[in-house]
């Protein structure tokens, strides 16, 4: 048997062993994610409920008001939708462009005359119910919503939809990054002394200290968030200690704001920064600092010129991982933040379960996914895939 054919056989057996997992992940992970991305651009709701209007508007020039036929089509569609109780769905879809259209469509459907046979002029009828029908804007919104694809959710996610609240998701995105970067910076700062301490002791004490690092890591994020709730509230443990020590006279606001989110997020993510740094420090010969010192370097210059550059790979690995993880946190800000401290994951869940705007939820999730994947590939490239540990 030649070496080549042995390698080939090894590859085939290897792939056969991997195949079940690939199939499994395709079903439970990869395809669902792909389907979600498709959802962010698909747009079929309105055409299903207002087919006549979609056809009538196909020949519209987009400049002037559409003709009477289009008005009659909208009226017929909305009357049928009211009967089927689907007008709300059509209104919701039109409302993605502007909340105003949602109200217009619902109230038109609600106010259409029961007996349509006496109506000769649908344009006047619709305009008298809702004056918005007399302007081209809502017709443009209708024409754009005919599907089957749309860019409206992606544009909304990027703050480019032009509506009055269009800055919301840009704000959220910026906020998500600011919180993640702050948490990463705090984690790295705190990780240095902790990792140093861990790397400088040995024996049973080292095991014990390691446990203090790992126990929090093993404890549910939910439990830890609840504990911070107890510690940080106005009459919480921390405020009572601070006031007993006369550090502050009145209790500080530590919860339902950015402070609470950052404290809890740091607590959750810190171990991920300490562990790689600890590994880097552990592998460093102690003699180096001594050498630096014997050459006349002070402790600080020794730290910055000799020590830091050598642990930098561990530091950046930890920092990158902390940042990636921080971007995706949902529970911690939910329990400890105010309304202005919620990150992208909150809005993904909000639009999925509460606002019923799945296209927007999928767009936001797609954006977060892309950023995460890019950073993850960067990590794999810089640190190596065999060192990915969460």
């Amino acid at each position, binding site marked *: 048997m030649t070496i080549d054919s042995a390698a080939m056989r*090894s590859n085939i057996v*290897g792939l056969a062993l991997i195949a079940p997992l690939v199939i499994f992940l395709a079903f*439970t*992970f990869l395809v669902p994610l792909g389907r*979600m991305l498709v959802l962010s651009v698909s747009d079929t709701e309105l055409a299903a409920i207002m087919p006549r209007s979609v056809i009538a508007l196909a020949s519209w020039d987009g400049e002037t008001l559409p003709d009477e036929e289009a008005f009659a089509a909208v009226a017929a569609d909305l009357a049928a939708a009211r009967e089927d109780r689907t007008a709300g769905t059509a209104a919701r879809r039109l409302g993605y462009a502007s909340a105003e259209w949602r109200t217009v469509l619902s109230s038109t459907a609600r106010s259409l005359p029961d007996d349509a046979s006496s109506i000769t002029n649908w344009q006047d009828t619709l305009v008298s119910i809702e004056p918005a029908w007399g302007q081209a804007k809502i017709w443009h919104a209708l024409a754009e919503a005919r599907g089957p694809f749309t860019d409206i959710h992606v544009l909304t996610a990027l703050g480019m939809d032009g509506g009055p609240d269009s800055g919301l998701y840009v704000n959220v995105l910026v906020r998500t990054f600011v919180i993640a970067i702050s948490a990463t910076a705090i984690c790295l700062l705190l990780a240095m002394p*902790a990792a140093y301490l861990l790397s400088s002791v040995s024996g049973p004490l080292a095991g014990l200290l390691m446990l*203090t690092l790992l126990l929090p890591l093993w404890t549910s994020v939910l439990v830890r968030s609840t504990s911070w709730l*107890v510690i940080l509230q106005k009459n919480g443990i921390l405020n009572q200690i601070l006031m007993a020590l006369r550090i502050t006279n009145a209790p500080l606001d530590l919860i339902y704001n950015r402070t609470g989110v950052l404290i809890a997020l740091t607590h959750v993510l810190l171990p991920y920064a300490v562990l790689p740094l600890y590994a880097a420090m552990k592998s460093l010969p102690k003699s180096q600092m001594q050498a630096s010192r014997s050459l006349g370097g002070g402790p600080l210059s020794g730290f910055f010129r000799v020590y830091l550059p050598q642990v930098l790979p561990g530091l950046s690995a930890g920092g990158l991982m902390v940042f990636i993880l921080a971007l995706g946190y949902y529970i911690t800000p939910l329990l400890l933040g105010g309304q202005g401290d919620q990150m992208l994951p909150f809005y993904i869940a909000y639009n999925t379960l509460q606002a019923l705007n799945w296209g927007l939820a999928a767009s936001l*999730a797609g954006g977060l996914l892309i950023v995460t*994947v890019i950073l993850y590939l960067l990590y794999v490239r810089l640190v190596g895939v065999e060192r990915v540990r969460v």
Partner: protein
Amino acid sequence: MFDSMKFWTVLTRLAGILVLLFLLLPLFAIIPLAFNAGSIVSYPMTGLSTRWFEAVVSTPRWLNSIGNSMIVAAATVALSVPLGTAAALGLDRLHFAGKSVVMAILISPMIVPVIITAVGVYFFFAPMGLANSLLGLILAHSAIAVPYVLVSVNAVASQRDRRLERAGSSLGATPFVVFRTITMPLILPGIVSGAIFAFAASFDEVVIAMMITGPDQKTLPRELLSGTRENLDPSVLAVATIIIAISAGLLVALNLVGAKRKVAG
């Protein structure tokens, strides 16, 4: 000069101790309150009582959720351990340039924010009737748990002494016998620690559970989330105390296996 060095070392260690305390102490802050007599979750305590622990063990919804969590976590282990172990051994045999890409994709469920997986699974599973069932939750949990098994087994497998297997083969053992008698014992610590990681990943997970479970399938973290959001009383803290004890138990188990968390660097 010498003194200043010593000063900095002591200062750094002191800071290190403070940081470790910052990590550890919050876990214990809630334990006393779980024994509070009143219903408001705040110090000072109004009296000592075990009523909230009694409430937990006598409330069907807490007991159901513990049962559901155990079933889901156990099934997740049963599903993810064979899949992950086979894939790790498969990766071990691969010799081509794209190997690290394959590995990166297979462990990506561990990295991708859970909310994204949860939303994707929600849209995908619901039309198939897999929402509102423990099966759907188990499948989704296995997807996020399998990377832990893969990584654990891979770490052990890549460091094993391959000469033993070659010796076995050259002595005439079939590949299966080699696997069972030589490879398997060598990678067993990796499998066991992978299984513990997988169990913990499922046992802790709340976001997917929030999306795809109904009232009958609520898991412990899902019930705990309801507790903190909708129904905050000390029974939530009693459950949290129980969870901390379980976590500590898992950690001790992991250390007994000897497969200490292999550190990234």
